[in-house]
């Protein structure tokens, strides 16, 4: 096969536009930036998860060297309210605290060291009160109330068909309670912001963020400033994964309040431990799943109850829960479902967006339910999935939405099964002595297993976020034939700039090298909503296509003239030329642009994308939840050391319905990275909490995968396009993560012959499961 060495258009294997600056160490991240007269901020935070503030103990803080400003809730002039959806979260605690790491006061000092030294001089007195530390207890009548309104933030439901009917028809019911752990994003660059006050009360904000428009909105709300007066510039962002969706607004608001008070620039960079304890995390969930099925392996429906541990403030937890709610059945056809998802306050870590947005937790549950059904019936887990996956004959999701691409589910399954050489061991004799630490059991010490995870993911925002689901791009053709593109979605490492450049390049038929795409500046592009939900390529791409169409039409007319009155519509763009396919004659792109400038025509265009309206009913959880869907299947091959409980994920085969590969190296990087991040979540990343205090707030004891842990990742791409996507592309950021945990849970269960129901599968947890199985097994010792 000859490599495609094209340098223009979508699908070209080009070098990312940001690669060289990053590899030379020239890219400026937030903490690399200095501004004249800049103060450094630090946070005084609560060591207690639930309590009443008796005093903040800030007296000595003001006398610490270099300290310029100390602010507590009483000193704030604007609204002390930063809840992004619900008005439940103060910028600075007033009266009571609800989580460890909650901000009590802000300090600005001459140096970073002085600012954090001053924090240690603060002696807050907080009378501890009982808290809620297990989401399963949050709704019990005796539970302490985290907020006066009670601990239930919101309930989502999904109802379809008649449960009575399937209850009577079912041959068997598979019941499981899954306890799925949270996860720290562990972006390599921590959170931070720089706020620079300008003339007339304006602000320029530099932020390491996925969502500059969220930052702007929340600063404006806190300070009362106009949106046009607050310019948010995204700095080169060192990883995000959802952790920089809403949380960056908090350091930005802190810095803004201090900057407005000091009339000086303020920088706040969170040290890693503060970041770990205080920033958002993947939600812990409890999923109670009852699957109704026939002896043939055909499922009829499910009854699901999900408890979501939101932590002390709602943040975006309800939105995450909404996706969990609509994803908990998986890509399977059902006659009836009854789902309830309750989002609860606790005094644990602050739940928030994280790659997959609630779907990975429920997918681990629904996929393990499918496995357990198969094992119960003596069937291959893949066969059971084939029996139930959506396809063109039964294309309707549990949300009632009819998927035109329903055949992609079985296709990803087939590809993953084929390329992984699927061969589970479940039907071998598994309830054996494996796990007994015995010299004679050495041969059976290591157990290999395989597991499969199939998912369907609704790309872009849920119907509940429809108002934000739009985006813009502005483009300028420069006189020399180079092009500037400004987009409203962010590069956080995933390759948004590369994808945007490829799409612009395709639209104009020019080399990617001519095109420059920059990080978001809120004063330069319209609010394009958040860069989340695997929507960046879709939103930026379609807006760019809109803009390139405008520009290409102008150039087409010019080229037609230059070529001597050939019909403009037949001209084709490509290879840096505008070509008449009939005669084969062409003008170069540069010549056409020169002519455009010669005629003083408009070289700029603003493109816009507005996804179509959809109908969705909150009462039943039925309707058009998402713009389109991407399927994925991953197969994990694991080796389990039954003596130590250590799980080695050896290989993951990832088959993805990507629509179209826009920038293949970035696409592969997303899949490889998503698989490994998911594997970390499923096997080693354990947020250890004691009364709301994170016991492992750093990389010393919160372990993420290293190069020696990462599995061999095999990628299979299915490129069948989707009409709504730019040149057919679907989203990949989250689908790359979601099936992995499910596949690993299934694979470890397969290896051991034990139906596991918890994540992460840390060595200790696996070993305990092995021991429990031995004591209950007649063959065990």
């Amino acid at each position, binding site marked *: 096969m000859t*490599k*495609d*060495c094209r340098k223009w258009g979508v699908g070209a*294997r*080009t*070098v*990312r536009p*940001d*690669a*060289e*600056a*990053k*590899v*030379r*160490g*020239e*890219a*400026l*991240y937030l*903490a*690399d930036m200095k501004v004249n007269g800049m103060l450094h901020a630090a946070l005084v935070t609560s060591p207690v998860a639930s309590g009443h503030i008796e005093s903040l103990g800030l007296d000595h803080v003001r006398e610490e060297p270099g300290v310029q400003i100390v602010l507590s809730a009483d000193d704030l002039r604007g609204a002390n309210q930063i809840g992004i959806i619900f008005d439940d979260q103060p910028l600075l605690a007033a009266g009571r605290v609800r989580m460890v790491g909650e901000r009590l006061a802000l300090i600005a000092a001459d140096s970073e060291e002085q600012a954090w030294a001053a924090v240690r001089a603060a002696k807050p007195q907080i009378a501890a009160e009982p808290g809620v530390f297990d989401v399963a207890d949050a709704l019990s009548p005796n539970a302490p109330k985290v907020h006066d309104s009670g601990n239930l933030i919101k309930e989502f439901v999904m109802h379809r068909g008649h449960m009575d009917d399937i209850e009577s028809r079912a041959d068997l019911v598979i019941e499981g309670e899954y306890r799925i752990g949270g996860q720290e*994003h*562990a*972006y*390599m*660059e*921590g959170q931070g912001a720089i706020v620079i006050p300008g003339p007339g009360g304006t602000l320029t904000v530099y932020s390491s963020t996925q969502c500059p428009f969220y930052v702007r909105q929340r600063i404006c709300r806190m300070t009362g400033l106009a949106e046009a007066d607050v310019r948010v510039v995204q700095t*080169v*962002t*060192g*990883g*995000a*994964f959802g952790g920089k969706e809403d949380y960056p607004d908090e350091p930005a608001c802190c810095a803004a309040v201090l900057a407005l008070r000091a009339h000086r620039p303020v920088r706040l960079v969170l*040290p*890693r431990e503060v970041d770990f304890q205080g920033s958002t995390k993947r939600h812990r969930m409890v999923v109670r799943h009852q699957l109704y099925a026939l002896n043939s392996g055909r499922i009829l429906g499910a009854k699901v109850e999900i408890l979501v541990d939101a932590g002390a403030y709602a943040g975006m937890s309800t939105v995450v829960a909404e996706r969990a709610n609509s994803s908990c059945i998986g890509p399977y056809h059902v006659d009836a479902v009854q789902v309830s998802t309750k989002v609860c306050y606790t005094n644990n870590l602050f739940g928030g967006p994280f790659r997959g947005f609630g779907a990975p937790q429920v997918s681990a549950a629904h996929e393990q339910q499918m496995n357990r059904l198969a094992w119960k019936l003596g069937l291959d887990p893949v066969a059971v999935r084939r029996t139930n996956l959506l396809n063109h004959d039964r294309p309707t999701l549990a949300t009632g939405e009819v998927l035109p691409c329903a055949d992609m589910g079985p296709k990803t399954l087939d590809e993953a099964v084929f390329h992984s050489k699927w061969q589970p061991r479940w039907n071998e004799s598994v309830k054996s002595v494996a796990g007994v630490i015995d010299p004679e059991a050495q041969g059976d010490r290591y157990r290999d297993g395989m597991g499969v995870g199939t998912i369907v993911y609704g790309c872009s925002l849920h119907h509940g976020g429809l108002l934000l689901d739009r985006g813009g791009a502005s483009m300028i053709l420069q006189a020399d034939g180079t092009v500037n593109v400004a987009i409203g979605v962010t590069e*956080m*490492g*995933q*390759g948004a700039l590369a994808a945007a450049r490829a799409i612009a390049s395709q639209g104009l038929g020019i080399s990617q090298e001519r095109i420059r795409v920059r990080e978001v500046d809120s004063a330069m592009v319209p609010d394009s909503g958040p860069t989340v939900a695997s929507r960046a390529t879709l939103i930026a791409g379609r807006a760019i296509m809109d803009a390139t169409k405008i520009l290409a039409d102008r150039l087409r007319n010019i080229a037609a003239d230059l070529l001597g009155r050939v019909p403009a519509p037949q001209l084709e763009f490509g290879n840096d030329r505008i070509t008449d396919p009939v005669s084969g004659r062409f003008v170069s792109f540069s010549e056409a642009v020169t002519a455009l400038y010669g005629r003083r025509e408009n070289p700029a265009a603003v493109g816009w994308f507005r996804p179509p309206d959809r109908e969705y009913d909150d009462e039943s959880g039925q309707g058009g939840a998402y713009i389109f869907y991407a399927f994925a299947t991953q197969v994990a091959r694991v080796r389990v050391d039954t003596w130590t409980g250590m799980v080695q994920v050896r290989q993951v085969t990832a088959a993805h319905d990507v629509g179209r590969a826009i920038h293949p*190296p*970035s696409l*592969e*990087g997303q899949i*490889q*990275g*998503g*698989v*490994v*991040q998911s594997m970390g979540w499923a096997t080693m990343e354990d947020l250890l909490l004691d009364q709301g205090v994170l016991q492992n707030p*750093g*990389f*010393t004891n919160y372990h*993420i*995968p*290293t*190069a*020696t842990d*990462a599995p061999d*990742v095999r990628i299979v791409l299915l490129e069948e396009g989707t009409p709504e996507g730019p040149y057919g592309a679907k989203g990949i950021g989250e689908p790359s993560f979601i099936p992995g945990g499910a596949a690993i849970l299934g694979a470890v269960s397969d290896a051991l012959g034990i139906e596991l129901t918890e994540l992460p599968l840390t060595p200790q947890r696996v070993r305990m499961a092995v021991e429990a199985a031995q004591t209950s097994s007649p063959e065990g010792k």
Partner: protein
Amino acid sequence: MQPKPIEEVTVTINGRKERLAVDPAKRLLDVLREDLGLTGTKEGCGKGECGACTVLIDGRPVNSCLVLVGSVDGHEVLTIEGLAQPDAAMHPVQQAFVEQGAIQCGFCTPGAVLTAVSLVDSQPAADEEAIRRYMAGNLCRCTGYTKIVSAVKTAYEILSERKGAGRRKKEC
């Protein structure tokens, strides 16, 4: 004579001898970033657990967040800025990282590149397992490491090509 505390440090940074009148107990990382403006060296954790602050001391990778500058008196430090001057061609390892798409958010990149430089300099041909083991101190949350490992392999190929030992297959 009573031994005196040291008050300045002489260290060669990126080939240039610097006499630094800084607190010798300051972290090398802070001296690089704050006093010398070499912000290509990143702080990821401050505890020697992530490798983002990796620099080479006398050719060996270390976490500069755990090194007090007093202890490098008389030694040579190489940071990412010194690996290739801004107007000069990239080092083969940098070139390989770029070609292989081993860079996503880029925050771990300078540290990972420097570790890889020391690997290719110190071991004539490391296999995949040796590469992974050598690079285990550079955490990356974006790439899943596949392309970083490919980049190190490619760096070996570029280097052997430069020595005239056959041409490598270039992707594009």
